[in-house]
């Protein structure tokens, strides 16, 4: 088994790397506080350097690899595999003497119960051979056995000692995993999963997070937000704190999870404000209510801007959705004065 040594000016730490395991997974699994975002080749947060020729990439065309300087040995830790011992230079600010308090792990698992919940969205479950804790808002990396590359999926609820994880997936044309789920009607499949991962989390027991929330979400980006809201409801968070949420899709038939959102609304009707938005329907800004929720025309950040005057101050914000929605919502919240430390999201796309 190869030994990977992560090093910088602050020190060095050596870990084992299992066959087929990425350098990021090897490091995180053994408590190395490596920087990462998506864990799946998109965000480029995990850029590091290897001696040229000592690592192989699992996905050369990864979106996050576009700006890499290969002549300097730059690589994405989340897409790098090794077969021999190697040294990896990580950013100097990382304190390699620190060890992660909670470490992700590999799990063998079974994917099952795929269910279409909207024309281009399905839910599915993954049952672990063991169990895992996770923090609300976190995700697991999932890989169909025999298929190259992991995909990140956020859990849609909050559990301790979870044995079955609940996910949502959007249909992506030509996406291998997505096509498999939607086209072949997978009733049972072996999968490898790795997690939990992700920093866009919510812990209401933390005094700094006992606050009003704002959630701006588009399409399947609602997954991790549902976990945050499930956690909040589980501790009656909205009895004493407010929620302002806009959930947007293209057309009203694309909505899903509305029963779940209704339960959240009913848990504290006076403090929970949930609005729906559709971006591709003609009409005035204010449309007829849909499934008991107020319905608006426009993109999520546009609707939030129209409705949210004074609603964002001092709130903790959670975002989920495609890149344009994230950027628009981020601009809105920054303009409203929220510090970046109070705005949480994963950039998966």
């Amino acid at each position, binding site marked *: 088994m190869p030994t990977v040594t992560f090093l*910088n000016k602050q020190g060095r730490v050596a870990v084992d790397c299992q066959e087929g395991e990425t350098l990021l997974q090897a490091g995180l699994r053994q408590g190395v506080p490596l920087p990462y975002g998506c864990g799946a080749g998109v965000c*480029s947060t995990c850029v590091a350097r290897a001696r040229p020729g000592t690592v192989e990439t699992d996905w050369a065309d990864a979106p996050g690899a576009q*700006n890499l300087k290969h002549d*300097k040995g730059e690589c994405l830790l989340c897409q790098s595999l090794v077969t021999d011992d190697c040294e990896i*230079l990580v*950013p100097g*600010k990382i304190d390699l003497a620190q060890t992660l308090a909670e470490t992700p792990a590999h799990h063998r698992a079974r994917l099952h119960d795929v269910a279409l919940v909207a024309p281009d969205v399905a839910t599915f479950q993954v049952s672990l051979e063991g169990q895992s804790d996770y923090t609300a808002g976190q995700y697991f990396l999932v890989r169909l056995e025999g298929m190259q590359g992991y995909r990140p999926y956020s859990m849609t609820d909050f559990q301790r000692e979870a044995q079955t994880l609940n996910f949502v997936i959007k249909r992506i044309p030509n996406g291998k995993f997505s096509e498999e789920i939607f086209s072949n009607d997978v009733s049972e499949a072996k999968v490898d999963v790795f997690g939990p991962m992700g920093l866009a989390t919510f812990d209401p027991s933390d005094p700094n997070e006992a606050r009003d929330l704002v959630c701006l979400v588009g399409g399947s980006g609602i997954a991790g937000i549902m976990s945050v809201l499930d956690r909040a409801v589980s501790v009656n968070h909205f009895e004493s704190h407010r929620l302002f949420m806009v959930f947007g899709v293209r057309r009203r038939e694309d909505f899903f999870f509305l029963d779940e959102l209704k339960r959240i609304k009913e848990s504290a009707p006076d403090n929970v404000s949930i609005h729906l938005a559709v971006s591709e329907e003609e009409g005035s800004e204010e449309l007829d209510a849909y499934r008991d929720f107020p319905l608006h025309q426009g993109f999520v950040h546009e609707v939030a801007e129209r409705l949210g005057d004074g609603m964002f101050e001092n709130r903790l914000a959670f975002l989920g959705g495609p890149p344009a929605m*994230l950027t628009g919502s*981020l601009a809105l919240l920054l303009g409203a*004065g929220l510090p970046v430390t109070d705005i949480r999201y994963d950039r998966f796309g």
Partner: protein
Amino acid sequence: MSDATETAWQQVCSTTDINDGELKRFETSEFAVVVARVGDEFRVIPPFCPHMAEPLHESGICRGGTLTCSKHLWQWNLLTGEEQGPAERPLVFYESEIRHGDVWAKVDQELVYEFDEEDDDDFEW
């Protein structure tokens, strides 16, 4: 002003090309720049984020005089270039001024960020 100095200055855009709080990319005769507007102030900067070279005209958000790169949330004071929050390197500016309603910048030499870690040079691969 000598000819050489004068030719180093180029008209980049009109002040009316950019709204308050907006970032736009423009091409000079030699390379690209991004022009940012904060009120009546304009700044001309390299087109890439000092962090991981994201194209700032796409990833940058300018609000209240603060520039945020949405990729990893590095932030700067857009008027001074000073880093804020998690940012670890300052923004650099091209010398610029307004002439008759146009933004001009001294673009005789392309400004590039040194993306290496400060201490990387000591590592001999």
